[in-house]
């Protein structure tokens, strides 16, 4: 075990994957010898050479096009998009190509070796275009897997699973926690199951579901609720697609109350999917409506970030409202 921050955990996963198979390639804007603007890929060029970890020209659609092709050739393509906000030029390559590659060919070809890494989320004074949490834009896409770790330990194990998973995976890294989140992480290889939610804290009154950096807010809200005598069960969804309906439903059968929280704007976010599914699965058990605690339906503002941010107080208020419905 070693103390690592989230970036170091990512870097360690990449290094292990690239050591394990020389068919693993890592690339993106500025990810070469410089190591990326967040330094997630630092040291990889020195260790594996400039053909294994390299810079791309500045073109996200090209990065994903290239990555799809490389993966279809049988390689493991680990593509970095510098910010989640800049993934949209690659949207077609991801949604129409990566996700449908295997299905459309009747399994003659696939891009299972593809992993897309991208930092996402707010709280870093990034304004409109360095703060978005675009997971819901991809969650409507059969064929993709979407994974969002909440801390270094999860990040490393999940990234290793993602790289070698035989399906294309969108791996979204909470950049607010890159350096802020530090924890014990095994130095050697280990994997964590994709598609499986994680019950972070058990409780009996209200279930709080979150993913990625937002799990921190769920936990803090649970702390505050505990002070007020409310027992929260906190679930980290971990995987957005496919997602673990069962674990959430099981919890709601017990608590009868659900609060879902996400950083992204409310409308048609992934919290809506969770709410829609769980109201169906747990209808007769629900004692209050499922509450969604999300960003406002505006672009991400710079100057009011503090107010816009979905902090633990907002989550706590929803827990409270759920209890007092």
């Amino acid at each position, binding site marked *: 075990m070693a103390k690592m921050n989230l970036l170091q955990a990512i870097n360690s996963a990449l290094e292990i994957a690239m050591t394990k198979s020389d068919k693993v390639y890592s690339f993106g804007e500025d990810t070469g010898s410089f190591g990326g603007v967040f330094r997630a890929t630092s040291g990889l060029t020195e260790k594996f050479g400039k053909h294994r970890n390299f810079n791309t020209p500045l073109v996200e*659609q090209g990065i994903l096009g290239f990555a799809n092709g490389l*993966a279809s*050739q049988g390689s493991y393509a680990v593509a970095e998009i510098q910010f989640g906000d800049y993934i949209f*030029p690659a949207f077609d390559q991801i949604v129409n190509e990566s996700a449908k590659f*295997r*299905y459309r060919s009747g399994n003659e070809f696939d891009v299972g070796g593809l992993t897309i890494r991208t930092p996402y989320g707010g709280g870093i004074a990034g304004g409109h275009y360095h703060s978005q949490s675009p997971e819901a834009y991809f969650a409507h896409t059969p064929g993709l897997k979407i994974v969002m770790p909440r801390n270094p330990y999860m990040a490393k194990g999940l990234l290793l699973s993602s790289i070698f998973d035989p399906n294309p995976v969108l791996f979204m890294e909470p950049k607010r926690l890159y350096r802020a989140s530090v924890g014990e992480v095994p130095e050697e290889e280990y994997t964590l199951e994709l598609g499986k939610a994680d019950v972070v804290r058990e409780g009996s009154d209200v279930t709080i579901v979150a993913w990625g950096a937002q799990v921190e807010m769920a936990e803090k809200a649970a702390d505050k609720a505990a002070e007020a005598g409310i027992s929260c069960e906190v679930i980290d969804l971990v995987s957005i697609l496919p997602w673990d309906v069962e674990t959430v439903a099981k919890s709601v059968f017990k608590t009868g109350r659900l609060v879902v929280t996400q950083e992204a704007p409310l409308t048609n976010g992934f919290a809506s999917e969770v709410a829609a599914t769980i109201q169906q699965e747990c209808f007769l058990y629900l004692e209050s409506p499922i509450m969604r605690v999300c960003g406002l339906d505006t672009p991400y503002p710079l100057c009011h970030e503090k107010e816009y941010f979905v902090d633990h107080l907002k989550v706590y208020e929803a827990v409270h409202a759920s209890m007092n419905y």
Partner: protein
Amino acid sequence: MAKDTKHQLEIVTKPAFLDASALKIPMLQILKEDGTLHKGVKAPDMDKNLALKVFDTMQFIRILDERMIAAQRQGRISFYLSSLGEEAASIGSAAALQADDMIMGQYREQGALAFRGFTVEQFMDQLFSNERDLGKGRQMPVHYGCKDLNFMTIASPLATQIPQATGYAYGQKMDKSGTCTICYFGEGAASEGDFHAALNMAAVYKVPVIFFCRNNGYAISTPSQGEQYAGDGIAPRGVAYGMKTIRVDGNDIFAVYQATQLARKLAVEENEPVLIEGMSYRMAGHSTSDDPTGYRTREEEDSWRAKDPVARFQKWLLAKGWINEDDAQANYDEKKAAVLAALKEAEKVPAPHIDELIEDVYDTPPKHLKQQLEELKAHIRKYPDAYPKTASRLNGGDK
């Protein structure tokens, strides 16, 4: 004049604007329209066997295209898209490659696939979306694909395969495979952002890829010159990306063959990506959904018949004595019969089983998909009359 110390650029002191005239790229032609060679030029090293295989494929594809357009009119298939007039481009280039080179096409390269050995039955199975189709009936007709033949499954979104070809070729290079990738696309698709990404990245990474632009004058109804682009076509872009570039007469089998042969050498031996622009003309409508009389004249179409690539090559073969009229006709008739027979057979083969609906979304179907399928099957069993084909099979013996 002086050179700039930093960029090593020549320095000029009077402003002068360049334009398209600064780079006019000529067109390679070996076989003239009348089927004879240009003076003083010899045919590329295509031996008799290969020449006959090429011609054979041309004939087959022409028959297939014509027959399937008719089949679509008869309502036997929903859609078809022919390569009439462009056979030399795909077949001539495929003939210059090795069987383990990867082909990534747009949708008008059935010639390359046939050359690789895709059988008439395989074509028909895809066109009829039957249970033998390698693509499991999921995509529209002409979206062929075959791993064994190194022919990437066609998909409708334009130009997406171009940067994919760059990535594929990167893998080939790293694997030291000694192979390359050829990527076909239309001059229309070359307007997409993916084209730009692909060529620039290939030039930067120096990967063994041949970009083959079929410039057939139209993208559906949009004429290339002046409406798709304002410059001298697609080839100058290759130069701009710092890539080896050549323009050929796409209706001249020898020009296509020779250029591709040399391109393959550059690609595989020197890791030089190459852009080939093949000038041609789409003789038929864009697809069976299209009626070209809405945007071009019969005269224009007719004027291109003189340039027909199949007839042109046939004349050369006849003059050379490698074929004779009678054999060619017999061969033609035989192929036609085979196409007809395969068509009749394939249309009787049932559709893929409903269980296939959720396969291949992921490597294995996740729980929610299995549940959705079960619900669907229950529904179909409840309303068998509404889904007669599937219902009868479900009841007959569910797999």
